[in-house]
C-alpha cells in the first residue's frame, strides 16, 4: 500500500521540482560520482579473467557487471537531475532535514573522524579517543572543552582496559612511549 502511495506521490513532487531546483544548484556531481565509482570497478575488472575454463564465468565478470550497472545508474541519475529531481535530506533523531548545514560543525566532526588515521598507530587508542571525543563534542557546540578532555581521556582509558581484557587487539596503551 505504502509503496503505491510512494510511487504515485512522484507526480506532485515533480511539479514542485521547478521551484526547489531554481532555489539551489543541481547536484550534477552526484551522478558523476556514481559513474566514477562504476569506472573504478570496470578498471579493476579489466585485468581479471572474465571467463574460466570449467565454470562459465571467471572472477572478473561479476565485477564488470557491477561496474557497468553503476555507470548506467549514474547516467540515469544525471537524467533525473536534468529533469529536476528533488532531493530531500532525511530526518534524524536530533536533526531535521529542513535545517541548513553548518559547515564549521561538519568540518569539526569530519576532523574527529580523520584524526584516528594519523594518531591511532603512534599514540594509541586512549589519546586518539580523547582527541576525537573533544572534536565531536565541539562540533555539537559543547562549551566546556576542558571537561570534554577529561571525559574523553577517561572513556578512552577505561574502554582500552575493558576491551583489551575481553580479548580485542587494540594495540598498546601509548605505543610511542613503548607502553
Amino acid at each position, binding site marked *: *500500500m*505504502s*509503496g*503505491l502511495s*510512494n510511487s*504515485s506521490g512522484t507526480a506532485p513532487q515533480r511539479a514542485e521540482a521547478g521551484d526547489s531546483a531554481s532555489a539551489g544548484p543541481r547536484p550534477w556531481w*552526484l551522478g558523476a560520482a556514481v559513474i566514477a*565509482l562504476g569506472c573504478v*570497478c570496470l578498471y*579493476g575488472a579489466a585485468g*581479471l579473467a572474465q571467463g*574460466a575454463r*570449467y*565454470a*562459465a*564465468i571467471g*572472477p572478473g565478470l561479476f565485477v564488470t557487471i*557491477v*561496474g557497468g*550497472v*553503476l555507470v548506467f*545508474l549514474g547516467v540515469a*541519475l544525471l537524467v*533525473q537531475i536534468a529533469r529536476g*529531481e528533488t532531493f530531500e*535530506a*532525511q530526518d*534524524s*533523531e*536530533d*536533526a531535521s532535514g529542513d535545517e541548513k*548545514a553548518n*559547515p564549521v*560543525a*561538519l568540518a569539526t*566532526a569530519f576532523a*574527529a*573522524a580523520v584524526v*584516528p*588515521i594519523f594518531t591511532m598507530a603512534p599514540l594509541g*587508542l586512549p589519546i*586518539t*579517543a580523547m582527541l*576525537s571525543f*573533544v572534536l*565531536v*563534542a565541539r*562540533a*555539537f*557546540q*559543547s562549551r566546556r572543552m576542558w571537561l*570534554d578532555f577529561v571525559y574523553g581521556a577517561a572513556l578512552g582509558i577505561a*574502554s582500552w582496559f575493558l*576491551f583489551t581484557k*575481553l*580479548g*580485542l*587487539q*587494540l*594495540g598498546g596503551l601509548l605505543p610511542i612511549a613503548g607502553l
Partner: protein
Amino acid sequence: MQSFELLLQGFGVALQPMNLLYALLGSILGTAIGVLPGIGPALTIALLLPVTISVAPTSAFIMFAGVLYGAMYGGSTTSILINTPGEAGSMMTALEGNKMARNGRGAAALATAAIGSFVAGTIATVLLTFAAPAIAELAFVFKPSDYFALTVVAFTSVAVVMGTSRVRGFISLFIGLGLGVVGIDSMTGAQRLTFGVPGLYDGIDLTVVLVSLFAVGEILYVASRYKPGRDEVIPIKGFAFMTKQDWKRSWGPWLRGTALGFPIGALPAGGSEIPTMLSYTLERKLTRYKDEFGKGAIEGVAGPEAANNAAAAGILVPLLTLGLPTSATAAVLLAAFQNYGLQPGPFLFTSNPQLIWGLIASLYIGNLMLLILNLPLVGVWVRLLLIPRPQLYAGILVFAMIGIWGVSGQVVDLIVMVAVGVMGYVMRVYDFPIAPVLIGLILGPMAEIQLRTALAAGQGNPMILVGTPLSTVLLIIAALFLLAPIVLRRLAK
C-alpha cells in the same frame, strides 16, 4: 510435534544461568540503545561483534536477540515521551503516543506499547517456532540456481521498497555489491579491486562499513544540522495506568498488528515501516472513536507497536531458514554467524539444534524480561535522555573506532571508515536508502558463488538459471518488483 520437543530442549539451553545473564544483558543494552538517539540495534550488534571472540555462539546470539527485541521496546519510549521516533518502526507510535503523553496519559501509552510488544513478540515467536523448521525443510531441495534467484528477489525488493527512488535504491545496492567483491576471490584466488593494498586482501568487513555508515555518517549529518536544546521530555504524571476501557480497546489492535507485522517482516524488504503504517491505517478505519485519532487514540499506539515487534521476529524467519537477511540488523546477525564459521540455513537446524532452539527459546524469555524491565522501570530509561548530546555523540564515535580498530588493527580500515562515513553523510543529505548497501555487501558474495556454481554445473549454459520451476518463479517475482511501480504509475494516469 517434533518442534515442541526441540523447543523444550532449547529452553534447557536458554535457562542456563550464564545464558539468562546474557539475555538480561542484551535486553538492558537493547532497551538503552532503543531509547538513545544516534544508535540502533544494527550498530549495537556490529559493535558487539568483536567481543564474540571470547563468548560461545549460543550465548552471543541470545544476547543479540535481546538487543534486537529490546530496541523495539525502547524505541517506543522516546516516541511517546519526546516525539522523536528512535527507529523507523516507531514513527507511527509517535503520532498518537506523544499526544496521549501530552494529555497526561503517558503511563497508559507506555503500558499499551510494552504489553502490546510482549503479546506480539510472544505470538510471533510461537509462529517462528513452527514456521521456521517447515521452511527450513523446504529449503533442503534448493539448488544453487534457486538460491541465486532468491538473492535476486532480495536485491530487487530491497532496492525498490526502501527509500523513495528506485534509481537511488539500486545505486545503494550496487555500491554494496561493489564493496562485497573487494578482496581475494574465494573460487580462483584472484585479487579483485584491492589495487595492491595488502589491507584489502581479506575484503572489506561488514562491521567496518556498517559502523561507518550508521555511526560516522550519522554523527557528521547530525553535527551539521544540530540545534542545541530542542528536546523536551514530557514527565509522566502520576500513575494513570491502563483502565478497563484501555484494555478493551487495546487487545484487538495488538492481535491485528501481530497478524500484519509477522508475515510482512518475514518477506524480503518487508521491514517494520510498512506493517506499522498499515496497522495504523487499519486501526483508524476500524475504531469506534474516530474523532480521537490525531489527538491521542490508544489504538494508534497499541496496533503499530505490536506490528513493530512482530516484524522484528519476522525477519528471523528468512535469516534462520534460508540465510537471507532482509534488513540492516539481519545483515549484521548474518555476519555474526559467519564470524563463528556458521551458515544459517536448513543445515543449521540439523547440525546445530542447540544454538537454533536455544536462540528461539531465549526469545520467549527475553520478551518476558523486557516486559518487566520496561513497565515498572520506564522512569530509569527516560533518564538516559538526560545525557547531553555532545558527549553522547562523542562517545558513539569512540565506540565506533574501537569497533573498527578492534576488527583488524589496520590503518586502512580507518581510512575506509572516513570514506564510507562521508558517503553515509551524502546518502543522508540526498536521501539514498542505507540498508541496501549492507544487504548488497553481505549477500553479493553469496549470490555470486551460487551463480558461478550453478553455471559450472550447467557447463556454462545460462538456461540453467531458470532450470527449476522455483527459480523461474522467483526471477519472475523479482522482475515484478522492478516493473510494478512503472505499471502502477501508468495505471494511475
